[in-house]
């Protein structure tokens, strides 16, 4: 228990520190004391507009969506009993991006812009569709590599179709669309955040309530059934929740690679457990902190040029995925 308390404290501290850093660092340095006065005392200074309309919503979005993505990753890892499953690796993010791109272009050609809710809905349809494809292709294959290869292929197909749409979409807003398809937190508005808060938190709460069947499912489907879990219903709920979470992320920030795999892995390592009851909240906090860090780097490293968020998350996340695979292979060879 002590370890859990300590680990949660570390996570909370990191999250807070990164949130503050994201507010003070940028093209213009705003000292922490001034940030405090702007946010809590509503002080009207030159920097107030910058903090309120740009940095603060962006930081909140990065934290919320990063957390959501990590939780989605953990849900998928539990479902596929595969430690490198995640919304991006399985092509779910790319599917969501495709449907959002289609919806955006359709809306733009009709002369209007999609609302936050419509974006989430479009992304959800795409997530579910890709998830369905992954399920069909992988069938009952429990082989980790086959599943991942299917996911990556679906991801490529969706990405190709998205690029096609973006290339031939004829509109002035195409620049935005192009940025978004690469993954970015720039241009977050409070309206976006008002839409994502209920979606993310309700999905999170419902996931947390699935802790018990999830823990049983970690032993495998047969044992879960023997422990009185309605596995059919549980799997359905898990698929819907992970799709909603990844859809919400993709709708607002585009695809973010590897965070959904890396964050849960780091959390399990930090807490030295895989109990969903402990790891789910940890994934949210850890994913939020990870994403804030990556966005900070994306914004500031080559400022004023901004990197795509995926560029940064890949640098950190991909080596972790490779590490997990190597470790698994070694373990598999040792036990057989």
């Amino acid at each position, binding site marked *: 228990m002590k370890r859990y308390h300590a680990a949660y404290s570390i996570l909370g501290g990191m999250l807070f520190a990164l949130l503050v850093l994201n507010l003070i660092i940028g093209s213009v340095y705003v000292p922490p004391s001034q940030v405090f006065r702007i946010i809590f005392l509503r002080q009207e200074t030159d920097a107030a507009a910058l903090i309120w309309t740009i940095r603060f919503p962006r930081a909140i979005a990065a934290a919320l969506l990063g957390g959501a993505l990590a939780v989605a990753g953990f849900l998928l890892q539990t479902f596929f009993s595969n430690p490198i499953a995640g919304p991006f690796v399985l092509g779910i993010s790319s599917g969501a991006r495709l449907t959002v791109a289609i919806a955006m272009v359709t809306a733009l050609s009709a002369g209007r812009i999609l609302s936050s809710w419509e974006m989430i809905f479009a992304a959800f349809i795409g997530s579910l569709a890709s998830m369905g494809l992954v399920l069909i292709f992988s069938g009952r294959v429990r082989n980790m590599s086959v599943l991942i290869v299917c996911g990556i292929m679906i991801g490529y197909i969706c990405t190709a179709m998205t690029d096609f749409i973006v290339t031939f979409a004829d509109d002035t807003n195409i620049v935005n669309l192009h940025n978004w398809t690469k993954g970015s937190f720039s241009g977050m508005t409070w309206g976006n955040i008002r839409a994502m808060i209920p979606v993310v938190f309700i999905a999170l709460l419902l996931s947390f309530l699935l802790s018990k069947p999830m823990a049983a499912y*970690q032993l495998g489907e047969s044992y879960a059934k023997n422990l009185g879990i309605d596995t059919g219903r549980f799997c359905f709920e898990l698929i819907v929740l992970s799709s909603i979470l990844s859809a919400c992320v993709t709708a607002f920030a585009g695809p973010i690679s590897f965070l959904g795999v890396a964050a849960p892995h780091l959390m399990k390592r930090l807490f030295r457990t895989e109990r969903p009851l402990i790891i789910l909240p940890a994934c949210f906090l850890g994913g939020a902190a990870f994403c804030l860090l990556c966005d900070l780097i994306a914004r500031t490293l080559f400022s004023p040029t901004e990197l795509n968020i995926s560029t940064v998350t890949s640098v950190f996340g991909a080596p972790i995925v490779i590490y997990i695979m190597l470790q698994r292979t070694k373990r598999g060879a040792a036990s057989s």
Partner: protein
Amino acid sequence: MIASNFLTNKAKAYDSISYSGKLSHKGSQGAGCVTPITVRGLTIGYGSKAVLKDADFEVRTGEVLAIIGPNGAGKSTLLKTLAAQLPLLGGQISLMGSDIRKLRPEDIARSLSLFLTDRPSTEWMTCRELVSAGRYPYTGRLGLLSEADWSIVDASMEKMGAADLSDIPFNNISDGQKQRVLLARALCQEPNVLLLDEPASFLDIRFQLELVSTLKNLAHCDNLAIVVTLHELDLVRRAADRVICLRDGRVDRIGTVDSILTNHYMEQLYGLPAGSL
């Protein structure tokens, strides 16, 4: 049959292994009046394809019933159906006197527990955490265990000789140790019926004999009804009170070990030329 002689000589030495203290069991209290499992006119299989037809038998309190038969005869299918993991294609199974199709999953979980050949693949889960999953049918929404639940977890591990493995990740222990931990998990579910699918695979002779004595003790001392599928006839001879033989899509014979495990009948059952045993 050299291995058989070896087993006979060594068996006594391991008879008392991993058995210490008595865990309070629902199975030992007043369960004697209800037959734990009654099977009538049972047809089982996958989809619409029947693997086994018209099976009639019961599993009694305090006995080890072994299911034997050639590969593909439906041993595992029968076990999975008894565990309510596969739908019945026909007939009826009563668990503790109630139709299994009318019981809620959590009610089944409280009276029947399962031990499978496949080892769960885990990462950080400790043995104690894994065993504690056996208490889930008794917990609330979040699966939080009470003090009483934890003491049952610890007692089960103690009883199976796995107490010293408590804080070690399940992934890091040997197959023989995994067997003890998984048995402890099955036991802390406080079942009336324990079903085991090929529990002896992966195990060396020492752990196989340990398994045999554990099963006998659980049946004879704790009054569990135990159903086990086994390949090794030597182990069947050692562990089982009664044997049920599956062949050609039906129950071929049911009877005591002595009446079933004759060389003549085994040759018939497994389709061996006469005189090969």
